């Protein structure tokens, strides 16, 4: 009796010890975590601080200076800490919740700098001033923190939390102009479709959990994607569909033109650049797992179809639109389609270094170009009505040569013409696709990028080759007096050209080893 009692006590004690040990060693984060995940934590704290500061402002409609200072300060520190922090080898914290590897650190840096750029640009233009209310700044910081959480996530739950923080913030940010019908339409559309996408995503996750009993990306290799295991296949398909919705890949693209058009231009740039960047990183993490042997064909087909549809729709629909932001929205759909080349290559060969390099370099290049292009658009919209038409840019090259020059650089970048950065983006994408034998997809890419070139060029035609007409935007300042926007645009132009001249070194030299949880044997094989 006593011996059995003793044994039971022993057992309880050892279980307690092991739980404690696991809690201390593996689940509760080491202090390193607080240093390495500093960007996320800083942004979250910053968001709370700006929110509290908002309580003390007298007029909530007016931009809040102090909140802006706080926001700029935290994003600056966050990006600096992401750039300087160095890790010897990839580490996973909170189970697989936060993976700190070079991919995450690079994403932190990109997201931090992108947010900083957006904040600075918004403060410099009149339309951007609307974004500088305390609560909106707080939402923007939350959204960036969410993006960082997404990029660092190694399992579904933390990824989903990040995604939702971002999405919910963005729904509100898109619709902040309560009196503007277009903004409301954009926000409602974005919200309804986004919520549906989130539901699809969750359904996919549920099915995946049902089939393998784990939601860690590292365990996805257990998924058997043949038609005999419908739950696995359908689960992953739904998960991917939910994700590509955020990338605005056709056939899940229909929200993009309306949202891009309705949202504040600075915000559009932020969404086009950083949200796409982060989702691309997440998809890269998911797709770098090797699924059960030889059953990837379905996935490849899926990305093939997505890629072709997106590239074709983005390139062709852009031709018929007149609104600059709508055109750029279709351009972003086409560009999202280009990502599918890398996704398809990655799905074929999860270890393909070329595909990962292509994905990361294109994501970053696209981020730079989008942020730059939408900043210039905001500059044009300044003191004019929002949502410019193509004709309203006629003759702007003579009036604002620098802004027109910058926009031309970014448009050449989208079109992939060297020496602007976009060329190397396309170069590596085609290389990765050719590596895995997707020559047809590469040819579709190049044929349609020649088509889409037409609308990029037509914007430039208006800016440079046509004289001013009575439709062209009336700007009270005849010369470019907005030196802050000029500087910021110059930064983006230099970045675009520098990447174009030197190649995307950051992506080629990156260490693509992902962090792995220490005791990942929770699921039996």
């Amino acid at each position, binding site marked *: 009796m006593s011996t059995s009692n003793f044994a039971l006590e022993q057992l309880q004690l050892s279980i307690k010890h092991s739980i404690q040990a696991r809690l201390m060693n593996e689940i509760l984060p080491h202090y390193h975590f607080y240093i390495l995940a500093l960007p996320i934590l800083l942004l979250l704290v910053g968001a709370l601080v700006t929110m509290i500061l908002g309580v003390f402002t007298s007029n909530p409609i007016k931009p809040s200076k102090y909140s802006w200072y706080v926001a700029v300060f935290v994003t600056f520190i966050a990006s600096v800490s992401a750039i300087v922090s160095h890790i010897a080898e990839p580490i996973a914290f909170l189970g697989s919740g936060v993976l700190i590897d070079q991919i995450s650190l690079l994403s932190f840096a990109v997201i931090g700098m992108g947010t900083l750029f957006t904040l600075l640009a918004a403060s410099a233009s009149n339309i951007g001033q609307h974004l500088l209310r305390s609560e909106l700044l707080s939402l923007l910081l939350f959204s960036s923190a969410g993006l960082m959480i997404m990029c660092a996530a190694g399992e579904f739950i933390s990824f989903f939390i990040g995604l939702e923080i971002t999405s919910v913030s963005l729904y509100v940010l898109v619709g902040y102009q309560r009196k503007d019908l277009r903004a409301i339409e954009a926000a409602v559309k974005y919200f309804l479709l986004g919520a549906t996408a989130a539901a699809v995503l969750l359904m996919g996750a549920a099915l995946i959990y049902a089939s393998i009993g784990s939601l860690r990306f590292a365990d996805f290799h257990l998924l058997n994607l043949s038609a005999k295991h419908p739950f696995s296949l359908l689960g992953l398909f739904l998960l991917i569909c939910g994700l590509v919705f955020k990338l605005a890949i056709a056939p899940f693209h229909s929200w993009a033109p309306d949202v891009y058009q309705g949202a504040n231009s600075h915000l559009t740039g932020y969404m086009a650049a950083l949200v796409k960047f982060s989702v691309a990183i997440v998809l890269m993490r998911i797709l770098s797992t090797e699924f059960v042997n030889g059953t990837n064909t379905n996935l490849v087909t899926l990305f093939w179809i997505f890629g072709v549809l997106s590239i074709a729709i983005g390139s062709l629909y852009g031709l018929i639109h007149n609104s600059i932001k709508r055109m750029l929205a279709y351009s972003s759909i086409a560009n999202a389609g280009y990502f599918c080349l890398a996704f398809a290559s990655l799905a074929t060969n999860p270890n393909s270094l070329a595909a990962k390099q292509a994905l990361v370099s294109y994501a970053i290049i696209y981020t730079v170009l989008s942020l730059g292009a939408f900043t210039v658009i905001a500059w044009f919209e300044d003191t004019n009505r929002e949502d410019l038409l193509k004709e309203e840019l006629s003759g702007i090259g003579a009036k604002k040569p620098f802004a027109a020059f910058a926009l031309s650089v970014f448009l050449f970048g989208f079109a992939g*013409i060297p020496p602007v950065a976009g060329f190397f983006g*396309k170069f590596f994408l085609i290389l990765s696709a050719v*590596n895995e034998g997707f020559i047809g997809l590469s*040819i579709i890419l190049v044929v349609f990028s020649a088509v889409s*070139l037409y609308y990029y060029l*037509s914007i430039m*035609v208006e800016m440079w080759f046509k004289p001013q007409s009575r439709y062209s935007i009336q700007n009270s300042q005849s010369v470019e007096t907005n030196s802050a926007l000029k500087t910021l645009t110059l930064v983006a132009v230099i970045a675009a050209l520098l990447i174009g001249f030197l190649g995307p070194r950051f992506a*080629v*030299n990156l260490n693509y080893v992902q962090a792995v949880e220490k005791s990942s044997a929770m699921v039996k094989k």
Partner: protein
Amino acid sequence: MADFISHYILSILIFFPLVAAGVIFLIPSKETSQVHRNIAMIAVVVEFILSLHLIRYFFSGSSFFQFAQFIPWLPKVTGVNYIVGVDGLSLSLVLLSTTFCMFGVMTSYTTIKVRSKAFLILFLMLESTIIGVFTSLDVVLFYVFWEASLIPVYFMIGIWGGKQRIHATLKFFIYGVAGSLLMLVALIYLYYVHGKGTGIYSSNILDLYSTAANLPFPVQSWLFLAVTLSFGIKVPIFPFYSWLPDAYEQSPAIYTIMSGVILKLAAYGLIRFSVCLFPQAASHYATAIMILAVIGILYGALIAWQQTNIRRIMAFSSLSHLGFIVLGIFAFNQFSLQGALYQMLNHAITAGALFILFNFLYERRKSFDINDFGGLASTMPWFSLFFIIACMGAVALPSTGSFVGEWLILMGAFQAAPIIASIATLGVILGAVYILWIAYKVIFGTAKYSENVHVVKLRNYEVFQLVVLSGFIFVLGFAATPIMEHTQTTLLRIEKTAIQKISYESRLVQSVHGRLVPIQLSSDAAQGDK
């Protein structure tokens, strides 16, 4: 010292115009842009003088790429590097470009009246990309320069062009990019196959030559077709010419003077890439392309005869003349290749001279219609003299350079394909018909219009340009040997490649104390370490 300059000369030639463009950019524009023009002028003259270094120190007995320079560019694993060098093929084309850029800037003094600062910057960028295309020996670098050369031209035609300029420039740009994107896929595929085959990625064209020539025939022919389509659009080869008349008609005067050189970019690409990379496929498709070239020759000449707009006549005449060059390239023997290269120079010179003369007429009369002129021989004797010289150059009269070129091409083509060559000979006659027709309409006849009676002198710089070009027309007609000596060894090797269907072999060399020494490639060094 000479060795030291030789080491860096090509990079200097590529980047010096860019530096000059940067200087011009930094000088604020005033009412007149005289300062900018003077700086640009100095820059192109210095560039020309620098390019003379190439002739002085070029070893004519070698087919290797001389003055080569290797600088790591992208990260090492990608094997994409900055590699430049010239051989007999590109040497004369580089000199041709620097010469014509000089003429171009001279012309800008009077023809560009608005936004001249921007124009000069674009022009210098164009010069730099043209030289880049002719000298780069890395396919990625080549592609960057090739595409980048479209951008300045796009803006030049779009901003300073004629009434229909927007249509023309969009057509020009989209035709160009559509073709070259297919080339990009082909080159990337080649790069990938090389990387997969050898385990080391490299976009050095010398490495790719050996890989490409050993590919199975179906693959080779697809790649060949993609690359040739891209160059064929820009040459242009027969069915892809429709951008050319529009671009010529609408472009500013300077572009037309340069156009002879710009079309040669693609002709150069045909030899360097289409033929040398894929000799097997090239010889398989040679007959088809020669037939297209002959159609181009005859069609271009006939259409040119029927046009009344001078610029369009020049466009179709270029189609016809470039047809001869393509015929020469794809006849694959030493004579025809020599003739093709020679004809590249001749066409640039005669077309340049004719354009200078026509632009002068246009400035006076604001008209491109040949019916608006006539009787200029009595009012402007000097003008007419130069006009007739340029026309004779274009007709390929014996004693002009074109005669030598066309004769060599046809002689070579007869050896390769007698029937095609004999049909092409008709092109020589038709060429004479339309050129003489223009000469008759413009120079001779009665002066119908009073505007034509007033005597206007040629400007000094125009006299200079025309004297130099007319001189060249005859010099090339009599003294072909020195030029051919420089090109012969390279062309012999190309002939060997094309006939024996083996890979083109060459090396990157640098002169050290009067001897050619292969340069160290850092990628080779890395290979040695392993």
